[in-house]
């Protein structure tokens, strides 16, 4: 069942009613101003032109740069570059940092520009759409951008609604107007809107429209799509307005020739625009870790710079006094000042250790990995033409770390295609299992001209009961199904086509139709049906809507005979609560409901009552009063409804089948093998949920299913064991004894009792007894908080020990609460998957929200991070894409930090030999190109293409998913190992060159600074390339290109920056003419480079090999080996299961 409003909305405080709209009076609105910026005042009522583009030609550069420098890293480098302009501390040539930063800013700027041009284009087309506005006395063809608040516009069939309009009149009877809201919530069924009858009757022609001067008073623009409360004041009367009279921007007019509307909210004030761009940024664990690491690196730099500067301070005294050739540099300053300047010099010099291009490469990898998800054919659902969609492009790696999945049931595990299976009328059950008795023939429904032939029903008894038409209860039962709903009907090719917001309703109305109670048409006040061939028209007195708190809907009708009747349908608990005492068949129906639930059918209870005329009149006044309220209208209405829905007569119950989606049991099995816990959170009955649990292999027969009583017991025991050692986080011994194969089944009510949230004064019966037993003397409030958090912890501890958890009868809020609890107490990565509006809270709360784009509209998808068409695709999303993304990002991060340290730490060691003067070792151009040309592409190719196992193997052996869950591939340890490795490599590179050059002699004088720089730089670059060549486990042609491009670019760009022509042009910028060429043609230098690279590479390779041969053999490798060896002599390796298949030890 689709709950249109999420629950969260209802608790928000009621807004003020300060939005006044006067029809056909543009000047009236112009006088209102609002404060925009300081003393600037803007118009209160915006016009209908929208500008989603951020920049124009003039503002692009400053605004974009301003935005980019909001990032800490960019700001830091800008700061360093500014420092560099001070000549005394400018250690690096100006281009060494400016060039890479400019490159990064340009890349990002171009991306923003492209996005913005696209936005400009779409703004242009949207603002330029034609429409007709009433100007003066007639409608003129204008564009959307010309519309202003208070205008009356005319819309035709299939037009898009240009602004939020109040429907005034339409060409249809009663001024009905049909709209399609696909662009707003993705729901494709038609909805009707209806004008006030006063405007419908009065505004019959253009002149009358032009004379219309009503004033609408309503709330300020808000983002709440389905809320609108206001009044229309016209000719001294007040009329109540609600969202049923509104046409929202973005809807499409259907089946209505012409309609007229008054513009209430235009442009950015419209509901859909208010809903745009409020995406809460979720960040992944790795992302946060990375930011912390960058800060750690920065702190390290400051410390190192400080130490080196202090060392310099001591040295400088010596230099001033003794080194005559240097004394002139320090003639006029104190050592402290010198040291201070040197500190900043080192800050500039060592800033190259902060990985500048990390962020942009990181983002690019995320983007492409998201594209891979969108491109995956295996996750494309052809029946709906629906590929998977990564709506968030920054969470991919977390897909590889999921430990808990919270799944909705209906529409997620099941198809949400409902078929009417069984019913229970006055205690008798009709309908039988098609599987149990195949000899049964489907009943023939050919006698009914309205039957659509889609319903297959096997129990002839029901048909007989209906056709006999003797039992009043049977008649009322079917009548209710034909009357109590919100389905819309359309005629297509002489056939009735039903359009329902929820598939349940459609199934019920269709069933009624096939059994002869046909819903024919609906106007605002009437419903017409054909009951066994007799056409009847009922007058609708009130519709008591469904929502997820009420869990029921009712309709109040006056039947053709003049009696007022109430028909209600809803969840069994709410209906049973409201039955007339002593209602017959209550017990039998309850029993039938249990049987239905066991067969995993969805049940609804039906009830009706006759309402006395007097009571109705009285109630009707209350109802009217409540419905024109501006404040707290919803609550008042609920109370009024409650008055009416009591003392009901039970008619019976319906049972609808909802089939499991394809591949659900396998997927759940696979995910469980991947050490992922799957919890099902559903609004269904406990029995239904448990049976679905069995059907999808979440529960198995050998599991001990814990229910409420046992849970209390276990928690009590847990309490006792933790009694003495308060604050101990471990679970008690008793809990651990029981952890073999348990499953937990709880209901929403139980959760409410167990976990009362802070502030809610709910007494827990156990609390007092426990308290007295404990004999604590704390202040009670504190104890209460302690208790609450303790209970939460105990419950989560217990639940996480279980193999499966099913929570039934939970509200959307509870769903979110459960997710929150698990996140809070287990510190795990969670994923929530759902398809309906009731899953939105949960999807937003979880680390990753997945929306199923299915039958229940798009609300879940629009709040989700990933959209899938089928639950079964989850296995591929997590086990393949998630796994790979995590692997890629982790390897990328490790390598990126390593490569930066390996090549740049040399600067620190060199300081010890250059008198602590922050002399850069490398050529400026090497620094400038290192991160953007020399080493960027191999690591990029690894981040995009790396695979440790093929997709097939990933799905075959889900056990290996646990590396991500345990953060094994990138964590502090890996980082510090990378740091140590990088440091070691830089030490080797530096000292090999140093000792080789120290005191050597040879033709050409190779021990000069430039040759030394070139030697160290070349060894560093080659070492780093060799490392990634070992790191890449998946060599495609692209990886080969990327790796070789590094070497080629190094040679080419060195040649470019070191040739004589360019030296002549700018001798101070290109200071290394032919240094590479001269040094790298010396055999001695080549030997030094070779030695450094080999000394660096060999240990790395040896450790890899050692890990490889000592590690548990990977199944992928093992199997491929055994397949290779499938010759005659190696038969024995072909055991059915390769060894080491067990999940790696925890």
């Amino acid at each position, binding site marked *: 069942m689709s709950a249109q409003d999420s629950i969260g909305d209802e608790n928000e405080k009621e807004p003020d009613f300060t939005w006044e709209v006067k029809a056909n009076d543009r000047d009236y609105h112009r006088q209102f101003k609002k404060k925009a910026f300081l003393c600037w005042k803007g118009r209160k009522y915006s016009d209908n032109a929208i500008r989603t583009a951020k920049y124009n030609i003039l503002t692009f550069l400053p605004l974009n740069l301003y935005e980019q420098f909001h990032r800490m890293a960019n700001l830091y480098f800008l700061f360093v570059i500014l420092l560099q302009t001070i000549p005394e501390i400018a250690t690096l040539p100006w281009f060494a940092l400016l060039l890479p930063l400019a490159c990064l800013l340009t890349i990002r700027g171009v991306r923003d520009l492209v996005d913005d041009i696209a936005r400009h284009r779409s703004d242009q087309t949207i603002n330029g759409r034609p429409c007709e506005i009433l100007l003066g006395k007639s409608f003129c063809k204008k564009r959307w951008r010309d519309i202003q608040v208070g205008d009356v516009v005319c819309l035709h069939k299939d037009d898009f609604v240009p602004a939020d309009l109040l429907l005034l009149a339409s060409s249809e009877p009663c001024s009905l107007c049909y709209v399609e809201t696909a662009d707003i919530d993705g729901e494709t069924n038609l909805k009707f809107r209806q004008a006030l009858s006063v405007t419908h009757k009065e505004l019959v022609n253009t002149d009358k429209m032009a004379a219309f001067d009503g004033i609408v008073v309503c709330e300020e623009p808000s983002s709440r799509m389905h809320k609108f409360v206001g009044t229309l004041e016209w000719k001294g009367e007040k009329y109540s307005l609600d969202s049923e009279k509104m046409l929202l921007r973005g809807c499409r007019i259907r089946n209505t020739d012409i309609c007229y509307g008054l513009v209430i909210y235009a442009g950015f004030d419209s509901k859909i625009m208010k809903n745009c761009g409020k995406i809460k940024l979720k960040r992944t664990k790795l992302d946060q870790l990375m930011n912390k690491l960058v800060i750690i690196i920065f702190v390290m730099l400051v410390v190192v710079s400080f130490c080196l500067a202090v060392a310099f301070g001591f040295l400088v005294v010596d230099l001033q006094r003794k080194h005559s050739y240097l004394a*002139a540099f320090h003639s006029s300053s104190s050592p402290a000042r010198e040291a201070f300047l040197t500190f900043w010099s080192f800050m500039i010099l060592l800033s190259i250790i902060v990985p500048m291009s990390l962020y942009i490469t990181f983002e690019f990898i995320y983007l492409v990995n998201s594209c891979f998800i969108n*491109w995956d054919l295996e996750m494309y659902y052809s029946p709906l033409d629906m590929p998977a969609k990564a709506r968030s492009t920054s969470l991919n790696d977390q897909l590889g770390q999921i430990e808990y999945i919270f799944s909705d049931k209906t529409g997620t595990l099941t198809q949400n295609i409902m078929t009417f299976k069984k019913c229970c009328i006055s205690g008798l059950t009709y309908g039988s299992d098609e599987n149990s008795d195949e000899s049964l023939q489907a009943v023939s429904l050919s006698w009914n001209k309205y039957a659509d032939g889609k319903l297959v029903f096997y129990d002839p008894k029901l048909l007989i009961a209906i056709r006999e038409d003797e039992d009043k209860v049977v008649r009322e039962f079917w009548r209710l199904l034909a009357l109590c709903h919100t389905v819309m009907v359309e005629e297509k090719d002489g056939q009735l086509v039903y359009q329902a917001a929820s598939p349940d309703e459609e199934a019920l109305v269709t069933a009624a139709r096939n059994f002869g109670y046909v819903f024919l048409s609906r106007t605002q006040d009437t419903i017409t049906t054909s009951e066994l061939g007799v056409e009847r028209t009922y007058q609708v007195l009130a519709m008591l809507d469904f929502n997820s708190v009420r869990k029921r809907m009712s309709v109040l009708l006056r039947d053709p005979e003049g009696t007022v009747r109430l028909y209600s349908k809803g969840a069994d608990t709410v209906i049973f609560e409201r039955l007339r005492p002593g209602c017959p068949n209550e017990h039998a129906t309850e029993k039938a409901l249990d049987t239905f639930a066991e067969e995993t059918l969805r049940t609804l209870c039906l009830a009706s009552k006759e309402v006395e005329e007097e009571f109705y009149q009285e109630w009707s006044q209350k109802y009217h009063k409540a419905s024109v309220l501006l404040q707290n209208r919803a609550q008042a209405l609920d109370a009024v409804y409650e008055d009416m829905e009591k003392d009901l007569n039970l008619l019976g119950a319906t049972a609808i089948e909802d089939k499991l989606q394809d591949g659900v049991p396998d997927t759940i099995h696979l995910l469980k093998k991947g050490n992922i816990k799957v919890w099902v959170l559903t609004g269904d009955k406990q029995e239904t949920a448990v049976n679905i649990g069995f059907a999808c292999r979440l529960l198995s027969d050998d599991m001990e299913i814990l229910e409420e009583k046992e849970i209390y017991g276990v928690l009590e025991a847990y309490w006792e064991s933790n009694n003495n050692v308060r604050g101990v986080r471990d679970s008690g011994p008793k809990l651990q004894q029981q952890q073999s194969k348990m499953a937990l089944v709880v209901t929403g009510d139980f959760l409410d009792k167990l976990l009362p949230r802070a502030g809610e004064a709910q007494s827990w019966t156990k609390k007092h007894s426990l308290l007295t037993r404990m004999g604590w003397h704390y202040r009670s409030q504190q104890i209460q908080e302690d208790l609450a958090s303790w209970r939460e912890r105990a419950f989560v501890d217990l639940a996480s020990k279980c193999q499966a958890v099913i929570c039934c009868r939970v509200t959307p809020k509870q769903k979110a609460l459960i997710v929150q609890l698990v996140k809070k107490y287990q510190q795990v990565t969670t994923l929530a998957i759902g398809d309906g509006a009731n899953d939105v809270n949960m999807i937003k709360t979880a680390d990753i929200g997945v929306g199923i784009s299915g039958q229940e509209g798009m609300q879940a998808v629009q709040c989700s991070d990933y959209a899938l068409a089928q639950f079964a695709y989850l296995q591929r999303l997590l086990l393949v894409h998630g796994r790979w993304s995590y692997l890629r990002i982790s390897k990328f991060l490790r390598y990126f930090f390593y490569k930066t340290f390996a090549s740049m730490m040399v600067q620190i060691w060199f300081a010890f030999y250059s008198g602590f003067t922050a*002399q850069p070792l490398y050529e400026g151009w090497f620094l400038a190109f290192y991160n953007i040309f020399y080493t960027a592409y191999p690591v990029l190719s690894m981040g995009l293409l790396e695979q440790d196992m093929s997709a097939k193997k990933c799905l075959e052996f889900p056990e290996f998913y646990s590396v991500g869950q345990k953060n094994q591939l990138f964590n502090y340890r890996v980082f510090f190992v990378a740091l140590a490795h990088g440091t070691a490599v830089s030490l080797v590179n530096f000292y090999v060159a140093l000792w080789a050059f120290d005191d050597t002699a040879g033709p050409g*004088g190779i*021990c000069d600074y430039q040759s030394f720089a070139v030697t160290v730089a070349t060894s560093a670059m080659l070492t780093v390339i060799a490392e990634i060549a070992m790191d890449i486990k998946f060599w495609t042609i692209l990886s080969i290109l990327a790796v070789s491009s590094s070497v080629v670019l190094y040679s080419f760009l060195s040649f470019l920056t070191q040739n004589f022509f360019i030296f002549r042009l700018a001798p101070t910028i290109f200071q290394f003419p032919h240094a590479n060429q001269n040094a790298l043609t010396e055999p001695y230098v080549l030997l030094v480079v070779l030695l450094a690279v080999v000394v660096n590479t060999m240990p790395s*390779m040896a450790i890899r*090999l*050692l890990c490889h041969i000592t590690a548990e053999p990977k199944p992928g490798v093992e199997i491929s080996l055994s397949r290779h060896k499938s010759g005659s002599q190696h038969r024995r390796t072909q055991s059915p299961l390769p060894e080491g298949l067990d999940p790696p030890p925890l």
Partner: protein
Amino acid sequence: MKRNNCQGLPSRMPDNTAFQQQQLPACRPSLTARAVLPGFFATGVSFLGMGILLILSAKSVKEIEITYTDLCSNCSKLRENASNFYKECTCSIPFFIPEKMPGNVYMYYKLHNFYQNYRRYIISRNNRQLLGEDNTDVENCAPFQRASNDRPIAPCGAIANSMFNDTILLSYYPNSSTGINVPLLSSEITWWTDKHVKFQNPKSSNLSSAFAGTAKPPYWRKPVYQLDQENPENNGFLNNDFIVWMRVAALPTFKKLYRRIHRIQQFADGLPAGNYSLDISYNFPVTVFKGEKGVVLSTATWSGGKNFFLGVAYTATGAMTWLAAFSLMAVHLKLKKKKASFQC
């Protein structure tokens, strides 16, 4: 190929390309013992061989080093006082070469504890001026940009100013009475690229007019166009000693090539064994900052001079690689056996 679905809209089905489906043909090299260990052994062998070769070739190099800071202590003392700037001081150091130094023999001067890689020192030069383009361009040369009379210094900057200015002559004594000056060449002691492109004299009819209007660096005795009185070609920015000095050293202890032995007459095959002496005109002060100066005579091979580091490092790396390879193999075999026994 995009199919159209029933509504005539283009299908949203993703393209089936190898890249988009992440099915690019690829090879997955795995680091198996079988693949890696032979590489280890081969590397070990070649490094051992190379190491031995390097050690042998370094051994074959004949090298003699004479540190003369202490041997010429009177001159050292004299230079500690800047007021003795224009006083000549010469010093003669006899020494003995026990073995013949065959082939090309090179003479280096060696400085110890001299920070040519000091940051402000290293940037204190002007490449444009040294290209001979503009004598007055003294940017970056602080604090040696202009002389007191505001004339631009040529060559400007701290590097040029502190140029090594000892002159070293080598004499051979075939017998105790008569000494022969060993002929020394100062050509081809620089990088070709430095001599021919990086350094150029300003264009003019003669050198002294080319440098008219400039001042000499304060520590210099003679202007730049009079550095070599004997060979007029070897003057100005193209002076070989100057070019060698301007190519700054990476480390505070360094050798710079000073002269080559001209292989004529009795020196055609190198330096014969016997008595020699160095005649040093001692100008360059080093004792103030606890520096040392020395002269190194050395033959050269393809692998540089008498530095054993590289040879030893290669040998050690080769040996370590072998050791690692053997231990890895041992581990591998042991585990393999274990696995095999498991499977049986």
